């Protein structure tokens, strides 16, 4: 097995991984960075983010307001020291991207424009039309090309973490092109592998988002935190699940039911605002959890519209006019026309809630450090508790930058004090074990199960048991089902035996990762007996600060269902209160 040494090994080359790599290269050009990704960097799912990135910009805004919006948006499950640091660093990071050439949309005077977003009290979402994530990703990727110390390993699939005395010292990965295995030895390892939306049947997430980093960390004994908090974005295109950005509503688009009624006013987000004049933190500018939950109730009441792709509500943007839609929401128009045959200029677009983002992830602190020394995590794969029980739209793109940089700085410091692994033979042994696991998959034959079959059952059982609303019976059924699927997955044969770009094998490895992550989502959903943010229980309908103002942690137990533990939330200055989305009318 080929060995590659680096000071810092980064797995994942999306927004977070690239930002971290650049930060390391800038801090010291002599530090070697190995940047491993299962896809070319520009394919990373950061590219699909549309609406923008939050950071205080206007004189009538303040860090305090951004802090309060984020903490109440997260239903007080955010770690407030993390939020304080985040809001303070956000503007600096967004300006940094501007200096690197990000084509942000501009105001008349040439300064960067900001737009309103859900749950935000002021315009503070920096945007590049409706392709903000795409432009951020490409800006970072292109900027990274000037640093020779960043060595990329594109299309390498990471398999397992390697550790010694509970310190992480590297990963083993498979080169897709050759099927060869590589043993990366690093003083520090940063996971930046993105979320796991693909564990659900209907998601905005691309095919690559299979929770690989979460599963790797979990298998290595690191807990996954707050996995019950899964964000449904309220406006996905039916059929494909393609995202229509919250910017649609930020620009003034409204949601109506089958009677043309703006139903959000019935769910504590009224009073109704005038058409085309959105009011911060009310109606269509409420937070994503509340809007998606409102859809669920409308569906129960029979107020949804029947379409060929199932029940929907309508996103009406006609009053914005063609010029504004073309200028601010060109991708939305293109996607709507292509995938549901509706032009938002002339007709309302059918939409429904769609799984979009994992608030939960690998347990990290404000430095991006996990409980395992030498292992760091950033971006969607991490849970640094910025987002609490519900992430506000446009905070995650900024999160990639702020914590990408901070984790990089911490990892650099850590690597400087670390000598690397002492016993390389033991590390090589672990790497061999990972390889044996993969070879075993290839050699297995017979068995009546299939990747797509098990995957479908996993997705359906999660949607059924851990969807927008949950209860004891449903979550328990999902837990049992997924535990059972774990066992049944042993009956899958990987039919493709080739060493070259074997996506059958990759699909099998991804399925194993997804099953681990799905199991944690189901178990944590069952364990949290309260309703908070994106986690809503029909049998425990109230928030319970006395018992559950805590982060959940899912620990792997070999051969058994995960164990759930609890961790205190860091509160600095905002005591749990009422989430007010009446636009200040209450």
């Amino acid at each position, binding site marked *: 097995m080929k060995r590659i040494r680096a000071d810092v090994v980064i797995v994942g080359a999306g927004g977070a991984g690239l930002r971290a790599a650049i930060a390391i290269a800038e801090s010291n050009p002599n530090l070697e960075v190995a940047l491993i990704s299962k896809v070319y960097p520009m394919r990373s799912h950061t590219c699909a983010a549309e609406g923008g990135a939050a950071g205080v910009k206007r004189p009538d805004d303040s860090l305090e307001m951004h802090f309060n919006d984020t903490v109440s948006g997260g239903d007080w499950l955010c770690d407030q020291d993390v939020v304080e640091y985040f809001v303070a660093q956000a503007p600096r990071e967004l300006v940094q991207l*501007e200096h690197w*050439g990000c*084509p942000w949309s501009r105001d008349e005077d040439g300064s960067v424009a900001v737009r309103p977003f859900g749950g935000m009290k002021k315009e503070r979402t920096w945007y590049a039309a409706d*392709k903000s994530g795409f432009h951020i990703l490409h800006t970072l990727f292109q900027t990274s090309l000037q640093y020779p110390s960043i060595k990329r390993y594109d299309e390498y699939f990471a398999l397992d973490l390697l550790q010694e005395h509970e310190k992480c010292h590297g990963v083993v990965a498979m080169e897709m092109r050759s099927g060869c295995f590589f043993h990366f030895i690093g003083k520090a390892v940063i996971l930046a592998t993105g979320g796991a939306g693909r564990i659900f049947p209907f998601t905005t997430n691309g*095919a690559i988002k299979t929770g690989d980093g979460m599963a790797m960390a979990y298998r290595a004994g690191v807990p996954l935190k707050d996995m019950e908090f899964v964000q449904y974005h309220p406006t996905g295109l039916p059929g494909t699940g393609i995202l229509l950005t919250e910017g649609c509503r930020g620009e003034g688009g409204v949601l109506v039911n089958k009677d043309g009624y703006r139903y959000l006013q019935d769910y504590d987000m009224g009073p109704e605002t005038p058409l085309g004049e959105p009011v911060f933190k009310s109606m269509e500018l409420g937070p994503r959890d509340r809007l998606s939950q409102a859809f669920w109730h409308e569906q129960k009441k029979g107020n949804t519209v029947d379409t060929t792709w199932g029940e929907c509500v309508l996103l009406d943007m006609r009053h914005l006019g063609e010029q504004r839609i073309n200028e601010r929401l060109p991708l939305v128009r293109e996607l709507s026309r*292509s995938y549901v045959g509706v032009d938002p200029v002339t007709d309302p677009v059918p939409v429904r809630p769609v799984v979009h983002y994992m608030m939960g992830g690998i347990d990290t602190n404000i430095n991006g450090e996990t409980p395992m020394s030498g292992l760091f995590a950033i971006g969607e794969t991490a849970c640094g508790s910025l987002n609490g029980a519900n992430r506000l739209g446009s905070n995650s793109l900024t999160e990639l930058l702020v914590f990408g940089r901070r984790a990089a700085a911490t990892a650099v410091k850590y690597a400087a004090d670390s000598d690397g692994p002492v016993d390389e033979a033991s590390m090589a042994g672990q790497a061999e074990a990972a390889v044996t696991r993969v070879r075993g998959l290839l050699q297995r034959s017979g068995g009546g199960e299939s990747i797509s079959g098990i995957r479908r059952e996993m997705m359906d059982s999660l949607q059924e048991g851990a969807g927008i609303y949950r209860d004891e019976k449903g979550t328990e059924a999902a837990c049992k089902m997924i535990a059972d699927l774990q066992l049944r997955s042993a009956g899958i044969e990987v039919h493709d035996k080739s060493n070259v770009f074997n996506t059958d094998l990759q*699909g099998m490895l991804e399925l194993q990762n997804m099953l681990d992550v799905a199991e944690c989502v189901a178990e944590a959903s069952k364990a949290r007996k309260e309703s908070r943010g994106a986690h809503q229980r029909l049998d425990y309908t109230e928030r319970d600060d006395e018992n559950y103002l805590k982060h959940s942690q899912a620990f792997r137990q070999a051969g058994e269902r995960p164990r759930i533990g609890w961790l205190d939330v860091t509160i600095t200055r905002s005591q749990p209160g009422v989430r007010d989305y009446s636009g200040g009318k209450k």
Partner: protein
Amino acid sequence: MPARQIELEVMRYDPEKDEAPWFQQYSVPCQEDWAILDALNYVKDNLDTTLSYRWSCHMMVCGSCGMMVNGEPSLTCKTFIRDLSGKIRVEPLENFPIERDLVVVLDDVLQKLQQVQPYIIRKNDPPPEGIEYRQSRAALAKFKQLTMCINCMCCYSACPQYGLDSNFMGPAALALAHRYNLDSRDQGKSQRLNIVADHDGVWECSFVGACSEVCPKSVDPAAAIQQMKIDGAMEYWKQKPGFPGGEP
């Protein structure tokens, strides 16, 4: 949703066992609103797990799923069944070595993207501390369309010049160079022109315009290349001592 049975003819190649690429037929029950990518996913999930291809976002932005569809370089998530009739042929992007089935080797173009120095270059003054550069909407409009490239590489597949001589830098890389040359924040234009207006750069382009025709994002690399020919010629004269506005 009405279904339609389509016949897919897909190129297969596994270098470990095939001497040459060959075609495999699949009969796929499709929904009327499906894209070619959906049909491939149906094959992968239900008919043949050994078929390899790249894809991710299914929303025309990650650039993974460029392939030849009926002989045209196409983004398969954006190429719809409803617009095609009869048997549909899917092949790997032309002008690239085949790695496996529909997956091509992209090393060469990745290296070319890097070669054009696609990042903001500042000569003297550092950026303003803590605040952004001002950039007018008109200044942004000059290069905005060129930032839309998703690196799907359909343009390289369509480019006859790249097909003849892979030393040619090609459409996406050159368009990317022009994108930074036109950015009001950048000061690296002459440095970049020394690279792109040289052998294997813009002058190799014979202006067939196929790259712009197949671009799923309307980036128009052909126009960018022609503009850089003019820029390159200007730069040549500017660097001549004594030329008005040139080196002293």
